[in-house]
């Protein structure tokens, strides 16, 4: 192709780009109507508060962990305007009295019901899955549940920002056959609370 022809094509596309920008600059009506197939990607960051452990006999003990941090990534698919189905990948860390770090990485499948009153929304969700736990040389995979809620302000149809509050429950159950030092009475149900800031992007 000759050089003059290429230059013309370039100019035409450049002009189209400006033309498109002008169209986008026109204010559009923001909405919060979702349909099957719409998706939401959320990112949360905040404080992880260890609450307590519970034995299978019901007694409780302090979690003996410091405040930690968590980061969570959510991907949800709208089934209709209010119901979503998706997953959450969360990572957190907390320190013991001697500075040993425990890492928790739950992977959850979750269902969400979203209460809407534009420009706000309140998602209520519940997830179930597994949690990877790493502490010193030990690495285990345990069942996990998480209940959560949020309060978002939507600055556009695509972007929303807000707070979230989540309760994480991890069941660390032993049969006693795992290693010589482990017995079934070491089973613990661990309880954590997450408080964080979130951003959600709809696409």
């Amino acid at each position, binding site marked *: 192709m000759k050089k003059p022809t290429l230059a013309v094509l370039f100019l035409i596309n450049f002009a189209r780009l400006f033309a498109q920008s002008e169209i986008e600059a026109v204010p559009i009506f923001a909405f919060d109507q979702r349909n*099957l*197939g719409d998706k939401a990607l959320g990112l949360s960051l905040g404080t992880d508060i260890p609450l307590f*452990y519970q034995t299978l006999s019901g007694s409780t*003990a*302090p*979690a*003996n*962990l410091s405040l930690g941090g968590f980061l969570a990534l959510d991907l949800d*698919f709208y*089934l209709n305007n209010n119901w979503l*189905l998706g*997953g959450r990948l969360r990572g957190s860390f907390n320190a*013991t*009295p*001697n500075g*040993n770090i*425990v890492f928790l990485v739950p*992977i959850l*499948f979750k269902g969400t019901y979203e209460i809407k009153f534009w420009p706000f929304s309140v998602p209520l969700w519940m997830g179930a899955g*597994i949690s*990877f*736990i790493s*502490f*010193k*040389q*030990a*690495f*285990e*995979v345990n069942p996990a549940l998480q209940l959560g809620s949020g309060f978002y302000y939507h600055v556009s149809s695509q972007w929303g920002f807000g707070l979230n509050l989540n309760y994480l429950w*991890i069941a*660390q159950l*032993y049969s006693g*056959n*795992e*290693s*010589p*030092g*482990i017995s079934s009475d*070491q*089973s*613990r149900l*661990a309880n954590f609370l997450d408080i964080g800031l979130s951003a959600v992007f709809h696409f």
Partner: protein
Amino acid sequence: MNQRIFPSILSVLVILIPTFQGCTYGDAGIFYTIEKEVFIPDASDSLKNDISVNGLARLGTNTYVGTRSLFRKADGDSEWQILRPAEWGSGYSHVLSIAADSSRLYVVVSNGEATQTKLMNFNGSVWAQSSGSVSGKPVRLTPVFNATGALVALYLSVHKSDNTYAVHDINLTSGAINPAISLDEPIALPVQAAAYDGSNFYLTAGDARLFKGTLTNLTKLSYSFGADLGGVSTLSAFPVSGAVFVTLSNGRVAWSTDAGMSWSQSGPHSKQSGENPVRLGHIFVLNGVVVAGSTQAGKQGGGLYELVSDGSGGARVQNLTAATTDINNYNSTALSSATVTGYLSVSGKTYVGTLGKGLFRQESSNKSWTWE
């Protein structure tokens, strides 16, 4: 939409389920361990918690610890003081090994590359180089204790040019290095441990051989232990007073009450189900119980182990119990998963050195450990 989501969920589950098989369990449940963890006091700022201890010694009212450097702490002090005596000579900055008798501290020092080493001694006021002829580089001091814990001799391993080791004994009166002792087979490692039962000296060098004899003339015992040897000690404690104890690399402790003619062995101990047994090294008495230190670290089995009765006339090796330690405190220490490199008992206190995890002190009054 649903046709896309549910197969995806199923696929992820299929991928994740095998991860349950990849678990690595610790000595106890994770949350249980965390629940029971207690704060371990760190008594000293000057002695770092990641040091490797290569020797512990006591002279007068001072306790000494060898790392790459030499530290001293006087009774009643809280901090360790680093020592860099000018008498060691220019370039001699690294400590390879330390030991002490009732009148002198002995320190093997080297230059930075460890191409040159020498034995220094300190009588409490003056440093001097130990006299005596050695054909090689002094590398390790090994104290020899009797059944009551009194030091009766001191061996010095010397690395020779043919990569074997000569063993010298130290004249405890003058501090000089005596001529090399006689071993009927050459050793390819420095002396690991030595003991004296009142009649015979015993010596191990980290392989499968145990030497027995007089102070200056030892021969290999013909008995086969079926494993490499760690420590050797004569201890007046369970299971049999006055026996010679040998720790083994297969997680067992062997003992003899007839000067090494016949041996009994404990059962093995594995820290993890299905894992190799814990390799045992130093053996000593802690709160009246025979205790062995691991020569490994981490999940393979670090820390200390007890030798207890198995209820049928024999003995077995097990994790420490309340008889020897405050369990929650001990399990909260880095000692519980560390390689044990030395120990020292001093009037109501026991120091245990580790490889890369610092120095720990236990007070016999409450059996709890403090990080020095």
